[in-house]
């Protein structure tokens, strides 16, 4: 029944000429290819712009819990490990001031991970610094009192030891060569309250054969180059970074602990008083001086509990335990400073199960493989128990907080990263895609030229 339709269609089609569209079709195809390439490039550019304008994995914005009137940031109530591909502190997009630094095993992947994480003071902007082998925040990597700089000893071969100071506001690095003659290694021990001075410890060879060394403590002013000798001690002496130096709030005096000896000295290097501390007592940390400079705080270990007590810096006489809650079940505590209402802010080092049973010396108890995680605790006068101010993931074994934030005492609610991928990851992804597009574009261009020649 469709014979007639078939015939009609063929008869009608026979009258249709063959359309000469070859050249136009080629032109259309080439134009389409150009537009596709242009659109792809535009998408890549837009993607790159989006990546740089919206730091993925690092939520910005104002901190939710910051109390009004501070204007100088606040302490996050939680930290996370840095996103994969987080920006570095020296990258072109500086973070400004940091609230804290943290370090630990597997911070960025490997066990002995020498990555320092920095968290912004105003928001959860994460930056990282690779320092070679693992170096603990607050002990070897130190945040300046205003949170704008960090000091650390870079890896070296011992021929030119130095301390690097990274400015977090612009990413620049200031190199401070070792100040002691014959130094084979140097590292920072503490910032002065105004951020101008830095106490450093050098390991100095004593004889040409390098058979023995001495520890030399000095106060240096990086901007002026001024150096003051503070103390010397045999290399067998125990100087525990993070506990060995505490500046008085006025910056004119400091307490130094070498072995069990506590020395009060002025910034000119003149020792004023020297005391011996009982066993299981140690200078409490960089915040050991009371806000009025009338007392120096020591951390006392009683079994698995730690308490804070004070001594008179003029006489060394005990002034008694502070009326703050003890911290139990931890490997150690370290006093960062004093917040509103006289509350002490301490780092609590929670031991691994194995370390809790075996380690005794403080330098071993806070060693990164022996620390499961850390918490920041507020020990308020008269309180029954510590108040947790900040938590960290398993593996974070050390933390340092800017002194300004410790005094301010503000806490903000931290926002977890939206995704665990940072700007560097996206940047390199875009670069890889762009390179792939360039290769494809190049092949297309070569093919097109060959076609044109024909």
């Amino acid at each position, binding site marked *: 029944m469709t014979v007639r339709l078939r015939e009609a269609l063929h008869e009608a089609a026979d009258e249709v000429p063959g359309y000469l569209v070859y050249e136009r*079709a080629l032109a259309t195809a080439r134009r389409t*290819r150009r537009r596709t390439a242009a659109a792809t490039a535009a998408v890549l550019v837009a993607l790159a712009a989006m990546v740089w304008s919206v730091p993925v994995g690092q939520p910005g914005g104002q901190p939710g819990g910051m109390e009004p009137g501070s204007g100088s940031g606040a302490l996050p109530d939680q930290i996370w490990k840095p996103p994969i591909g987080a920006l570095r502190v020296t990258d072109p997009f500086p973070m400004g001031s940091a609230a804290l630094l943290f370090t630990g095993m597997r911070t960025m992947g490997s066990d002995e991970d020498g990555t320092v994480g920095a968290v912004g003071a105003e928001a959860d902007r994460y930056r990282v610094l690779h320092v070679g082998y693992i170096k603990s925040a607050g002990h070897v990597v130190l945040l300046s009192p205003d949170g704008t700089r960090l000091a650390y000893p870079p890896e070296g071969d011992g021929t030119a030891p130095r301390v690097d100071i990274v400015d977090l506001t612009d990413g620049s690095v200031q190199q401070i060569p070792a100040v002691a003659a014959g130094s084979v290694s140097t590292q920072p021990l503490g910032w002065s309250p105004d951020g101008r001075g830095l106490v450093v410890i050098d390991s100095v060879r004593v004889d040409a054969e390098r058979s023995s060394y001495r520890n030399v403590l000095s106060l240096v002013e990086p901007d002026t180059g001024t150096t003051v000798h503070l103390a010397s001690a045999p290399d067998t002496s125990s100087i525990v970074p993070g506990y060995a130096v505490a500046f008085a709030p006025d910056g004119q005096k400091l307490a130094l602990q070498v072995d069990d000896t506590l020395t009060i000295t002025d910034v000119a290097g003149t020792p004023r008083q020297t005391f011996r501390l009982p066993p299981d007592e140690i200078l409490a940390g960089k915040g050991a001086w009371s806000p009025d400079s009338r007392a120096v705080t020591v951390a006392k270990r009683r079994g698995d509990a730690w308490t804070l007590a004070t001594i008179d810096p003029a006489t060394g006489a005990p002034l008694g335990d502070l009326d703050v809650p003890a911290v139990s079940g931890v490997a150690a505590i370290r006093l960062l400073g004093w917040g509103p209402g006289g509350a002490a802010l301490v780092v609590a080092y929670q031991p691994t199960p194995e370390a809790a049973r075996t380690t005794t010396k403080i330098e071993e108890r806070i060693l990164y493989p022996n620390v499961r995680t850390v918490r920041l605790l507020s020990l308020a006068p008269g309180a029954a128990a510590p108040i947790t101010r900040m938590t960290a993931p398993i593996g974070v074994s050390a933390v340092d907080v800017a002194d300004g934030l410790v005094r301010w005492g503000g806490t903000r609610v931290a926002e977890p990263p939206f995704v665990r991928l940072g700007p560097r990851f996206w940047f390199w992804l875009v670069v890889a895609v762009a390179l792939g597009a360039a290769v494809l574009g190049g092949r297309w261009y070569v093919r097109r030229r060959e076609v044109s020649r024909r």
Partner: protein
Amino acid sequence: MGEAGEFNGEFHQFVVQRSRALSRTAFLLTGDHQLAEDLLQAAFARTYRHWRRIRGDQPEAYVRRVMHHQHISWWRRRRVTERLTAAPPERPGDDPSIAATLRVTVAAALQQLTPRQRAVVVLRYLDDLTEAQVAEVLGCSVGTVKRHGHDALRRLRAIAPKLVDAPRERSVR
């Protein structure tokens, strides 16, 4: 001759050899020479972009597939202004050529079908494809092809009965 020259030569040869047949299909799909040229040009352009992949695998079938899908796409964009009418809007009258008269009649009748119906008619009765082949070209099931074919014939009988054989009368047992 380089790879690109060979590539271009193959495509040129294909266009030269198959332009006539594909032009006829394009015209019956669109019913208009200008639209048919544009349709064929677009189909060839797309074929050229993918020539490296399809040149060894029935490129003509690919061109037909592109033409039919492109035509349906165009129809969807224009359908606001196009309306199907009960009778052909264009009737042969002044054309002195019988063949031209037939061409206009066929084109006008096909324009009264939906693009899918038109595609099925052209593929089945001009290109002589089987229903399965039509289904493959249009990317639909054989059942859909049957339904579109049935609807198309019924409509053509209504608007241009001379183009279609008279239906057989059912035998009465």
